[in-house]
Each structure stands twice: as C-alpha cells, then as structure tokens.
C-alpha cells in the first residue's frame, strides 16, 4: 500500500503539473480538492483517466468519485481493492 501511495503522488504531480510540489509535500490524508491541494474539475478528469489507464478502473458514478478522490489514502484503498491492472 505504501508503494502505491508513493506511485499515486508521483503520477498526480506529473499529470497535473504540480511543478512546485514533491511527493514529500503531499500527506496521505490531505484533501485533494478545495482547501487541500486545491485541485479543480479538470484535475478530477485527469484523476479519472489515471484510474482507467493505469489501474483498469472505470468510474461511472460521480458520487463515488467524490469519496474515492478525498485523499491519497482513499484513492490507494479503492485502487488496491478494485484494480484490474
């Protein structure tokens, strides 16, 4: 799980162009949206693509997405339970 969290942080920094950030700057429980990392709706679409492309998970329910994308912790948990890649 720790390896997956690190991998997710690296992917998010790269895909979302968070150039001033390093993986050490993101805590596992930091909120990804709003007052946390401040990601926006376009970033949410990039996260959906990461889930699909890299882990074979297709999200169809937006309510589900809200829960999954709360933090690195929740993302890693969901991926480890549902990944097909």
């Amino acid at each position, binding site marked *: 799980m720790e390896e997956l969290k690190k991998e997710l942080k690296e992917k998010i920094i790269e*895909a*979302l*162009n*968070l*150039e*001033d950030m390093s993986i050490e700057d993101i805590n596992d429980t930091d909120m990804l949206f709003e007052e946390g990392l*401040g990601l926006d709706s*376009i*970033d949410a*679409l*990039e996260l959906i*693509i990461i889930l*699909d*492309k890299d882990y074979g998970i297709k999200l169809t329910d937006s309510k589900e997405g809200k829960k999954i994308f709360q933090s690195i912790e929740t993302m890693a948990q969901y991926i480890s339970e549902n990944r097909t890649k």
Partner: protein
Amino acid sequence: MKNNIVKYCNIKNNEVFLDGKSIFHDEEKLDFNEFIKKVYKNFEMEYPKFYKMDPLCKLAVAGSSILLDQFEEVDSEMAVILSNKSSCIDIDIVHQASISEGNEGYASPANFVYTLPNIALGEISIKYKLRSENSFFIFEDFNPDFLIDYTTSLIGLKKTNQVMCGWVEIFKNEYNAFLFIVKAEKGITFNKENLLKLI
C-alpha cells in the same frame, strides 16, 4: 487627447523588455518552457495555475502580468485584443498525440482545455478580473492596421477607455510576445510605423 501607447512589453529571444528596457535576460539557451518558468519565478507572479497552462497561455499571461503589474490604472473594463499566426497549434499537436493510438487513445483533459487560442484571453481576464470585450485574431503576420482600427473604434465608441492589445506568437519553441496598452494619455504615438518598430 489622441490615443497613445502608454506602456509596452516584449518577450523574445530569452529576454523580457518593458518600455524598451531589458528587465530580464537568461544567458543559457533554454527552451521556451524552461525560460518562461524562470520568468514566472523572477517576477514573483505567484499564480500556481500558471504551471498548468499551455505555452501560448503562459506567454500571454506572463507578458500581460509584467505589463499590467506596472500599470496602476487597470480597470475591469479594459478590453483585450490579441493576435498571432499559429493560433494554438502548439498544444493542438500535444493533444493530437494524446489521442493517438500510441497513448491507448486517452485524451488529456488538461491539454484539451487549451485547444482554443482565446483561452489565453480567459486566463488573463480571470487573473486581472477583467469583464470587458476581448478577441483573439489569427493573421499571417503582425497586422498593425487591424489593431489600430479595432482599438480606435472601441475607444471612439466609448466601449472602453483602455485596451491591451498585441501579438502573442509561439510555435515549436519560436516565440514573440508584444503587448501594449493604448489609452488617451501621454505616450508613444499609436500608429503603424511605431508598432512595427516596437514589436
């Protein structure tokens, strides 16, 4: 009073000029993305969204920030009229690659959102809270006659009393930004000859 160029900024050849004076120069022959990142940091723009922008938006936002941050009279009615030759082809190519089969057909939303040149206008308007007329035109070459006609008409019809306009061109690491503010105030005569000299 007639309309004059009251302030202008150029970004080209790894150098930034304000009113004709060099204010930032990078000795290393950096590519555009590295160079513009240094410009962003040097002028302390503190606008993290900058990193997510495509090259055209980065050039337009950097140029307008350097210009508008030194212009005390910016109001929300300032019109913005930009132009270039290559539209947003730079990011279009990246987008095309992202939907090609080599990338398993996944489009990148972050790239796609910039596949229109007038997004640059939106980014500037958001940053400076402008709620004014804006347009982005594509020409074969820098077209001073058109910019003079359009700007003069906007001010003459009292749609606004200040216009930021210019040329923001980038394609494959070749870039040239020339942005200027026109207003009925003391400044450089707003005519074709001067625009061709200042670009």
